[in-house]
């Protein structure tokens, strides 16, 4: 296998990873405050749609990205209010919000652009690709870091920042304490519900950014249900990485790799429809392989108690 091909695979992996990484970080921060947020998929989908819509109407990339983050946050606000404030059942809220996002984006697609299925327009431009001066001169690295946008790099930056916030700051520890024991944290004067809601809002922003990257990153296009289960793959990544930002990043890269391989296989003897199923199968197998041990340990604990 020649180095060029490897570089292309790595580049493709990075591009596939970043949207999922945003959402996985969002999932991780919800896990950290012990909120089961199932609506990540919907938040991402709305972000993806808003990015395209704002891009089309204003032509401004900055506004599109900010607007996507804001839209994701608004959807997250619904989740936060109903699920945390009004103690709605997490499964019901999450599923309803996901369906609302799916129906709502398809609805708006028809209202705003008078089309069904997908929307793209030559007047729109995708996020600007960044080329780093030194790397640009080295052929191998040039391919690896080629075609990446500002938002792609932002994902890594946020992951690292989140690590420092959660594990190196007082506020981060407070946030974690809410997840470990909300009542105990509240007895120390921490606003548990407020922190939980803030965390869900953060996940909304992150999902919105991930969605914007999906529709404005590699392609400039919105397709109905473009997220296609990525929110759930991201949840798997957050679980796999044990909600630790850097672990989540590693897990996301793994799933990104699976998606990249799936895309690459389209050029081989295996038919396209089957390769599309590949990332989902890999996700399930990975969850099985990684959580086998966890389960056994838990069982022993239960028996000891009895």
């Amino acid at each position, binding site marked *: 296998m020649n180095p060029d091909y490897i570089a292309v695979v790595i580049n493709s992996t990075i591009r596939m990873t970043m949207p999922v990484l945003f959402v996985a970080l969002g999932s991780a921060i919800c896990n950290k405050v012990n909120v089961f947020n199932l609506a990540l998929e919907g938040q991402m989908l709305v972000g993806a749609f808003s990015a395209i819509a704002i891009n089309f109407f204003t032509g401004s990339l900055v506004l599109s990205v900010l607007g996507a983050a804001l839209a994701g946050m608004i959807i997250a606000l619904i989740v936060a209010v109903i699920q945390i404030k009004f103690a*709605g*059942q997490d499964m019901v809220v999450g599923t*309803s919000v996901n369906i609302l996002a799916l129906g709502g984006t398809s609805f708006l697609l028809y209202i705003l652009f008078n089309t069904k299925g997908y929307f793209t327009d030559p007047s729109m431009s995708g996020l600007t690709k960044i080329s780093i001066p030194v790397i640009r001169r080295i052929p191998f690295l040039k391919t690896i870091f080629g075609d990446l946008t500002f938002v792609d790099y932002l994902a890594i930056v946020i992951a690292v920042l989140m690590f420092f916030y959660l594990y190196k700051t007082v506020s981060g520890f407070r946030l974690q304490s809410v997840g470990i024991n909300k009542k105990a944290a509240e007895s120390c004067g921490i606003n548990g519900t407020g922190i939980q809601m803030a965390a869900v809002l953060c996940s909304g922003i992150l999902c919105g950014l991930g969605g914007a990257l999906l529709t404005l990153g590699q392609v400039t296009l919105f397709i109905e249900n473009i997220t296609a289960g990525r929110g759930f793959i991201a949840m798997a990544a957050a679980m796999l990485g044990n909600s630790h930002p850097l672990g989540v990043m590693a897990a996301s890269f793994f799933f990104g790799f699976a998606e990249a391989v799936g895309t690459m296989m389209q050029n081989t003897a295996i038919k396209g*429809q*089957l390769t599309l199923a590949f990332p989902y199968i890999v996700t399930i197998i990975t969850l099985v392989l990684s959580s086998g041990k966890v*389960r056994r340990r838990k069982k022993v604990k*239960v028996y000891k108690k009895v």
Partner: protein
Amino acid sequence: MKKCEIISAGHKLNVKNYIVKLLQPIFSILAGLFVGGIIIALMGENVIDTYITMFRGGFGSPYYFMSTLTRATPIIFCGLGVVVSWRAGLFNIGGEGQMIVGAITSVAVAVYLPIDGITGLLISLMAGIVAGGLYALLAAWLEARFGVLLLITTLLMNYIADYVTTYLLVYPMRNTEGDAIVVRSEAIPESMWIPRMNLVNGSTLHYGIVIALVLTAALIFINRKTVFGYESRISGLNPGFAEYGGIKQTKMMLMAMFISGALCALGGSIEVMGTKHAYYGGMITSTSFAWTGLMAALVADLNPVGTVICSIFLAGIQTGGAMLERSTNVPLEITMVIQAIITLLISAKFFVRFLSRHSERKKEKEEGATV
């Protein structure tokens, strides 16, 4: 505790509770329609006229009502599938995948096995049921054996089922006759179709709806009178207690998921054997039968009879929505938005809160005193 709320509500035999329970979905539906009305008004359409068109399209004449029932049939099956799994605390959101597996298996059996007539129909329905049940069982087994969250695997398996089925339709099972734009399988021989009921001239309603109603009755019986029904309810309410009480959780879980998957799959099988008579690409995902069934079950608070009623109501909104799309600028997707808003409002239990605010305040005070 949060997990049980949805399942536990309404086990107190209290008239006021029942009224509140009944008012809850009704108010939520009205509120959902109200929000939908705001959206329609923002589009510059006449809200009242739009809703009249919509409800006339769903329930306005015997013929329209028959179309609604035809559409409701697979939705009811998926709703019942959700009832079985969710009340046992198993959040199966893979109804769509199970439905696809059931439908494609039935079509494959009906088209490629040299069988015919009513036996052929029964065999292909059975094949669909078993395939869908096993598909759901796989997810349940992964949770029981490896602790992989069921709700993630079932959802991801929707996409796997969809892509693999698309592959089957595009290559091995493709029907080369007819126009090349629509991807579809070979047609099912007419002798194997589920017979039509012919209550109204020209309606497509078939006996699938009868099977759905019979299964609803069976489900009520199972829930109330059998050990499995009791065990699954207790497991949903309080898994720890169920384990302590000696309920074999793994066995219960596998069984509940198999039944849940089988019900969803039967919905898919009946749709192809009764209505479409072939598998068309995307026929199950684009109609979002499974998600509508899920919402119907949630609106009904996992009550089987309520699920049937809600399924018919939501199906009516959808058939009406299709008519709306033809006559106004309002797209069909408005129905999905309204449905999702209804379930969201239901999940927050806003109206229960409103109606029993007084008693809740009292409770809070008591709780405050004990803490």
